[in-house]
């Protein structure tokens, strides 16, 4: 009752939620949630405690969270400027560039990993040079996992943020310019805060995608417990011998990611 002029007003004002929106929305929700219900029903609850007491599980989980978060960080640092470039400047071939950015989504995961190896592997285009000049090898390292995850996750961020930028009113940037803000300052202090919900959405997508990443990671970074074995790899391998364990591990992964996403303050996802 006290927050009378924030969100609840909207819900109140509109009184009834139109059926034509509510129905498909609920159907969509059921469609997304039902399979999870299936997993929960099937889950080997009695075996759960013993699964969870295994330190290997926690290692994989920790590694997953660290790598997914780092990959999201890399995506933000490189992807937000890229989105800005696509949305706010005009250059020949911009549409081709935008299409290229989405390609990692289309690439079958294993091929993605192979592509990464061809570029950054020991004998890759750039990797060869990284190796000989700096002695850096990326495959089979935790950094490699982050790279593989960023490769598949960044496009989500770029496309989301570009959409948000295009929907934002560029006249606020003009107002900032007349106050002496360089394009960079205007971007940092005006545009970015204004499109925070879009960036938030993109980051959530990228994070979740990175957390679930499997194909490119195992191909590029390999699978070594404690170093490059993330939860999805552990789940995949468990599936080979013991599907119940695999389902149990998946549920752990899901539970943790729900906890993180619910814990995200609404502030990251809403307008000022």
């Amino acid at each position, binding site marked *: 009752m006290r927050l009378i002029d924030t969100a609840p007003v909207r819900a109140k004002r509109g009184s009834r939620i139109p059926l034509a929106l509510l129905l498909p929305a609920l159907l969509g929700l059921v469609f997304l949630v039902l399979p999870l219900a299936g997993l929960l029903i099937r889950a080997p609850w009695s075996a759960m405690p013993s699964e969870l007491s295994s330190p290997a599980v926690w290692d994989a989980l920790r590694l997953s969270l660290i790598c997914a978060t780092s990959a999201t960080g890399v995506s933000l640092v490189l992807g937000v400027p890229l989105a800005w470039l696509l949305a706010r400047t005009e250059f020949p071939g911009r549409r081709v560039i935008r299409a290229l950015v989405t390609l990692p989504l289309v690439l079958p995961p294993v091929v993605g990993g192979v592509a990464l190896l*061809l570029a950054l592997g020991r*004998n890759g285009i750039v990797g060869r040079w990284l190796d000989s000049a700096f002695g850096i090898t990326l*495959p*089979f390292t935790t950094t490699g996992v982050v790279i593989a995850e960023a490769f598949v996750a960044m496009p989500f961020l770029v496309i989301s943020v570009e959409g948000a930028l295009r929907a934002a009113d560029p006249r606020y940037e003009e107002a900032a310019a007349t106050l002496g803000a360089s394009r960079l300052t205007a971007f940092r202090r005006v545009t970015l805060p204004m499109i925070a919900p879009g960036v938030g959405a993109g980051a959530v997508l990228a994070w979740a995608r990175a957390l679930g990443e499997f194909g490119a990671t195992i*191909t590029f970074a*390999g*699978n*070594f417990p404690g170093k490059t074995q993330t939860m999805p790899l552990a789940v995949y391998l468990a599936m*080979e011998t013991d*599907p119940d364990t695999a389902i149990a591990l998946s549920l752990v992964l899901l539970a943790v990611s729900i906890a993180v996403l619910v814990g995200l303050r609404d502030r990251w996802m809403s307008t000022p």
Partner: protein
Amino acid sequence: SSSKSTTPAASGASGSAAASASAPKATGTITVFAAASLTGTFNDLGKKFEAANPGTTVKFNYGGSSALAQSIVSGAPADVFAAASPATMKTVTDAKDTATDPKVFVRNTLEIAVPKGNPKNLTSLQALAAPSVKVALCATQVPCGSAAQTALTAAGVKLTPVTLEQDVKSALTKVELGEVDASVVYQTDVQAAGGKVDGVNFPEAAKAINDYPIAEVAKAPNAAGAAAFIAFVESTEGMQVLTAAGFQAP
């Protein structure tokens, strides 16, 4: 499940006679769920079977053995399941989803795969243990991994691989691309790579042979076809195709 196998599963010659006897009954579409590593050979077998049994169509669903096993347990409309390891077949038999007892139809032996020309000149399992050698092994959860582990134990070699791969192909890819110096994989895979990698035999391989079981699926839509196809795989003609690809008769 091995205690259940009462039929003489391991006789190629007698099998082929049985197969030709039961073959004519097969009609319609036969759906075969097969391990991805069988793709090449089973595609061949399928064509030959269709030629030998006019009016039949063989449809293959290739995938990871375990994913296939999950599909079947969940009610996939399969007639035949050919797995890459007894362990995955066990998932299905445990769920009582096989109509016949699984039979081992081929076996596969290990080899060391090295980049073409064997630049590091690796000739034995022991050589892989050198710190300067980067090795990719299969994870122990998958058949090639557990077999490799058995061989390594038999050889008394302790080595730390850089990665435990999810399947043979990805281990092999890393050898092909030169990302690792060696891997322990199946002979069939080295052969399929068609000269892009070299294979090195090692004696301990004999202790770690992998069996490929095949079985008719319970509630198979085309039970007769399934039996005919299994018989054909086990026939001399079938074995010829399989051994040509590097598999060994059981």
